């Protein structure tokens, strides 16, 4: 006998699966073990957070010009950071010339801003991006170094702090990515000479620690150069960091290239597209999108690795903070210094990470295949 059911309105789900109570049950107390872990975590937070907050905020000293100001409170001495702040930002860049650093940074922010606005057409973005890539480094170099157009010269050995960190990271990133892409393409090339060259390059740079690279660039390189050649220390660091990270980047990009089905290059070839157009229009856009997490991983590593330049006596953010903690007038505040440095590094790295997630979401056109 046929039975027809009249459809009825949906009823409420059981009350212990929804709302705050349901959420707690699902996420924190779903099993005895999870309940125990939740309680343990709460206990740890309870015992660690209040002292931390007391040190960082309640008992902290925010103002004052010498260490005496910090002697009484017992909390963090943020006055140490405040007094040294300009040094942390600019290094030994002459005070009256620091506007040049600010101008360089502002120019980049305003110049690059349209690249991040969604309503700007892609064509303009590409032109602006390439234009910036070609002109901005020259401009920034001229402005920061000076020695012409009425600006007093500032030697690169005076650059320091966050400025130096950003210069190394910025140059490293913008140079390592394209170089890495070329190396990755070269490693997959049909031409044996190019392939061997790229494999050798990648395996060499991946096989040595960055510290070794930096050491060699400052100790060994002068041995090979004619006596009297002055090879800028910063330039050596830049080249070392770039080539080192390009090798890592190449392998990340190669991972993406391998994930693109052969049919894509075949379809492009069948339409009459040559190698560079196939790579540039079909393969790389897909491959790079796939490996955004890996690329950003490498960029973040690069950003943090810039702190290794202290090995060759450059005063990047990390080294200049370290230097300030050894200042006899401010002995004993290394914790504050390193916490500050950590926060600055974290802000930049977290920013990159969030932007990459946003980018991944926006570029997602995959749907199902």
């Amino acid at each position: 006998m046929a039975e027809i059911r009249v459809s009825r309105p949906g009823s409420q789900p059981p009350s212990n699966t929804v709302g705050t109570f349901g959420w707690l049950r699902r996420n924190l107390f779903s099993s005895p073990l999870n309940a125990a872990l939740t309680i343990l975590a709460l206990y740890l937070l309870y015992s660690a957070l209040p002292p931390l907050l007391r040190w960082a905020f309640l008992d902290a000293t925010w103002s004052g010009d010498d260490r005496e100001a910090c002697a009484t409170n017992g909390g963090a001495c943020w006055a140490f950071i405040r007094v040294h702040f300009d040094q942390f930002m600019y290094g030994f860049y002459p005070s009256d010339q620091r506007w040049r650093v600010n101008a360089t940074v502002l120019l980049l922010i305003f110049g690059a801003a349209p690249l991040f606005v969604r309503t700007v057409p892609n064509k303009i973005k590409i032109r602006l991006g390439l234009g910036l890539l070609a002109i901005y480094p020259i401009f920034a170099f001229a402005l920061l170094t000076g020695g012409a157009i009425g600006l007093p010269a500032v030697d690169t050995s005076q650059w320091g702090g966050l400025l130096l960190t950003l210069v190394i990271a910025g140059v490293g990133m913008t140079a390592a990515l394209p170089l890495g892409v070329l190396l990755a393409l070269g490693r997959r090339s049909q031409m044996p000479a190019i392939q061997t060259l790229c494999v050798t390059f990648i395996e060499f740079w991946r096989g040595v620690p960055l510290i070794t690279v930096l050491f060699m660039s400052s100790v060994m390189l002068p041995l090979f150069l004619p006596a009297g050649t002055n090879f800028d220390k910063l330039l050596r660091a830049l080249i070392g960091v770039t080539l080192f990270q390009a090798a890592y980047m190449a392998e990340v990009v190669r991972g993406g290239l391998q994930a693109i089905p052969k049919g894509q290059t075949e379809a492009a070839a069948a339409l009459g597209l040559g190698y560079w157009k196939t790579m540039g229009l079909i393969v790389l856009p897909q491959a790079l999108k796939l490996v955004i997490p890996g690329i950003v991983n490498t960029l973040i590593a690069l950003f943090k690795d810039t702190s290794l330049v202290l090995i060759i006596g450059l005063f990047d953010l990390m080294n200049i903070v370290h230097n300030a903690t050894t200042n006899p007038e401010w002995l004993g505040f290394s914790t504050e210094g390193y916490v500050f440095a950590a926060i600055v590094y974290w802000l930049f790295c977290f920013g990159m990470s969030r932007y990459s997630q946003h980018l991944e979401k926006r570029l997602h056109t995959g749907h199902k295949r």
Partner: protein
Amino acid sequence: MSELSPSPARTLLSDQAMIQMEGIHKWYGAFHVLKDINLTVRKGERIVVCGPSGSGKSTTIRCINRLEEYQRGRIVVDGQELSNDVKQIERIRREVGMVFQHFNLFPHLTVLENCVLAPIWVRKLPRKQAEDIAMQYLERVKIPEQAGKYPGQLSGGQQQRVAIARSLCMNPKIMLFDEPTSALDPEMIKEVLDTMVALAEDGMTMICVTHEMGFAKTVAHRVIFMDGGEIIEQNPPEEFFTNPQSDRTKLFLSQILHH
């Protein structure tokens, strides 16, 4: 087997040869995949290539636009001989459209962008003109309304029709089809075959690797049967299906027609 639209008239063919394959041999390592393939395709001729899997059908047509290299023999396409010269290969590929079993649309580009890419970057057409042409062909394959979508949002049949339109946008003189319906669900096969029949009606020179024998009967001038890297038999469809010559052809036909 799918019901197809009425067969396009098998008009008298011109004598002009579009494709000449002479003594093509190919080896994968020590394995001899193509053994002395000789094939002349005249302008406007429609050829269906069939045969068991691994018989070298796809490899044969992929030699024509040099997606596969061959070790011996020569191929002349529309009066131009294939050589190792990259520029020459690209010149020939411009005139030879190809449709793949797995569509191979570019997933990061919209349907319209898929269609205008090659005309803009290879034929150097202005974008506006390329888009007009693309819309025209998307209308012909009956999916102009999908122009703004990404391939991943379309059904298999729609994707394959986009792939056909994409090839046609280059205004090719020859179309190669490499098992265009093998990856499709049964209800989508007809829409793709209908598109191909319509193309045949316009007099396009076509080589089609397929197991759609209905399509072969209605559209092909010649059916070629391959096995073991050799052309075993070639005949007009009526002759091929009613009076197969070799035992291998008979066996193959009995297997695909009576399953």
